């Protein structure tokens, strides 16, 4: 048996991702014939087989990142492996839990076992009969147990010394209970970005209650005309965006970003609008949002959202935003606390607009109420400023005076 290890592709390389097996278990491989491919930072490398023989065991599944010198496969000479003399006390093969590829029955604790191997097996709950020993006389070595654990464990087990960042398939007996699939690239990027944001900014959220009755009236009045003129419905979002642009002009710190110890003020207002996709999220940007009226904003929102969903956005349409809005009200949410879209310093969340009984001058009235939540980066923006900004949006919306059409 020859162990095939993850090679060291240079001093600077400590791990690699096994991207593809070029041979299947059971296939014959010649010495120096490409056996698998690995990928390290932007470099794909074919790895030749260290020996001629039959690929008897593949211990690392495609897509797994492992450290250098990890055993990824074993090559046997084929003939010998098949004809290995059966041990004297071979137990019947375990039926309930099928063994990994080499199908010959392994001896139960064949030969003397080191205390380390026994302990590892006990700690990991491994039946040693399922492990094929590669040591002298089929003796099970520490490396055999490690390789077995690496192959079987879905996540890096506490004591498993093999680093496996991409989960390998779970043991077969578990397959009915869970399903493991790699994240899509977009999902991985979103995950990375969300955590980065939470780690970067000191998130604080302030929530203001806004009476949208005037906006609701303006919208109701313009709705049908808008629909027939532009072929799209008029929502609350362009009104909120318009008010936000005005507030950003009044409070430029909310339209800024942080670069080290510097505050970067953006003279232009480019507002990103979070768009939910089937399996993710994208934030296309309305450029020069401050220069658009409600009609222009609504058209931009519809256009960007449609092209986001059909994946036709251009790169500069998802970049360069200076502030973002998340319209979770569209999904019925009343209040949420959005995560800042880095490197911006604030994001406005818009809750659903609902008719609500409120007290005005000691009388109960029915008004269209909406909660606006502003998550801001407390490193740069003090609470008072965050509230002044949100209050400005509220004031514009509550006193809506602009003609829509």
């Amino acid at each position, binding site marked *: 048996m020859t162990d095939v290890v993850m090679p060291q592709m240079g001093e*600077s*390389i400590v791990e690699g*991702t096994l991207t593809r097996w070029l041979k299947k278990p059971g296939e014959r491989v010649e010495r*120096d014939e490409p056996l698998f491919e690995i990928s390290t930072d932007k*470099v*794909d490398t074919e790895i030749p087989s260290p020996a001629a023989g039959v690929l008897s065991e593949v211990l690392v599944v495609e897509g797994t990142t492992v450290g250098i010198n990890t055993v990824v496969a074993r090559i046997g000479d084929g003939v010998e492996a098949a004809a290995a003399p059966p041990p004297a006390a071979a137990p019947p093969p375990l039926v309930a839990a099928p063994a990994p590829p080499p199908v010959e029955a392994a001896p139960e604790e064949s030969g003397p076992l080191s205390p380390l191997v026994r302990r590892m097996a006990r700690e990991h709950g491994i039946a040693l009969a399922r492990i094929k020993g590669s040591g002298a006389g089929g003796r099970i070595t520490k490396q055999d147990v490690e390789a077995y654990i690496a192959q079987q464990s879905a996540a890096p087990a506490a004591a498993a010394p093999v680093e496996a960042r991409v989960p390998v398939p779970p043991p077969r007996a578990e397959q009915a209970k869970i399903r493991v699939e790699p994240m899509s*690239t977009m999902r991985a990027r979103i995950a990375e970005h969300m955590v980065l944001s939470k780690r970067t900014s000191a998130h604080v959220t302030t929530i203001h209650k806004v009476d949208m009755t005037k906006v609701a009236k303006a919208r109701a009045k313009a709705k049908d005309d808008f629909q027939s003129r532009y072929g799209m419905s008029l929502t609350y979002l362009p009104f909120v965006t318009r008010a936000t642009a005005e507030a950003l002009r009044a409070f430029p710190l909310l339209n800024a970003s942080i670069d080290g110890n510097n505050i970067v003020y953006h003279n232009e207002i480019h507002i990103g609008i979070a768009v939910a996709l089937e399996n993710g999220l*994208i934030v296309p940007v309305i450029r020069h949002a401050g220069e658009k009226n409600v009609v222009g904003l609504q058209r931009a929102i519809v256009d960007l959202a449609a092209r986001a969903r059909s994946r036709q956005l251009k*790169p500069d349409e998802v*970049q360069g935003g200076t502030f973002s809005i998340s319209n979770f009200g569209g999904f019925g949410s009343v209040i949420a606390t959005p995560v800042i879209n880095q490197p911006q310093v604030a994001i406005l969340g818009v809750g659903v607009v609902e008719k609500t009984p409120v007290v005005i001058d000691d009388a109960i009235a029915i008004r269209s109420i909406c909660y606006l939540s502003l998550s801001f980066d407390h490193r740069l923006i003090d609470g008072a400023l965050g509230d002044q900004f949100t209050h400005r949006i509220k004031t514009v919306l509550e006193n809506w005076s602009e003609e829509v059409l």
Partner: protein
Amino acid sequence: MRKCEVRDLGRIGYAEAYELQRTLVEQRKQGLIPDQLLLLEHPHTVTLGRNGKLDHLLAGEDALRAAGIAFCETDRGGDITYHGPGQIVGYPILDLREWKRDVGAYVRALEQVQIDALAYFGIAAGRVCNCTGVWVGDAKIAAIGVHISRWVTSHGFALNVSTDLSHFQYIVPCGLTKPVTSMAALGVRASLEEVKARVAESFGRVVQYTED
């Protein structure tokens, strides 16, 4: 004495250049030729590396064809990228055993080649940690993707000189990616020939050839 032959292939199709690389890699493995640096330009082509995902292709293959852009899956490292006129593509065919047996150092060296060449034209380019490639501010100006077989390299780098950047629109995965830029977009008017000469010169220095 280590030598490197520099070949300027002009504009050449992706498949044709790929075949040439394969031939040269074989010859290099057998020690029939010294190290090679191929400098060239591709017609409009989008290529997908081994670790690339097709969902990074925004446009769909039909839309690409309609735009006159070829699409090739290939065996270099890295993700999806665009090649086209105005972009210098460099394919070094090196035997790393004669330099450093270190793929990480090789990638850093390719970055340094671009950084040095750009510095000559007054562009302060650099690295962004954990993002291979060469960057000016937040924008990528040169991309890197390499294939290695028995320590012999192929594929390499792509430096945007006067590339029409709008063609990158077809391949941006999502809003979290960074923009691309070119020397022309940064206000540097330089011919491909001038830049190629600089790239070859800095390549020779960074990879430590004693003569060209």
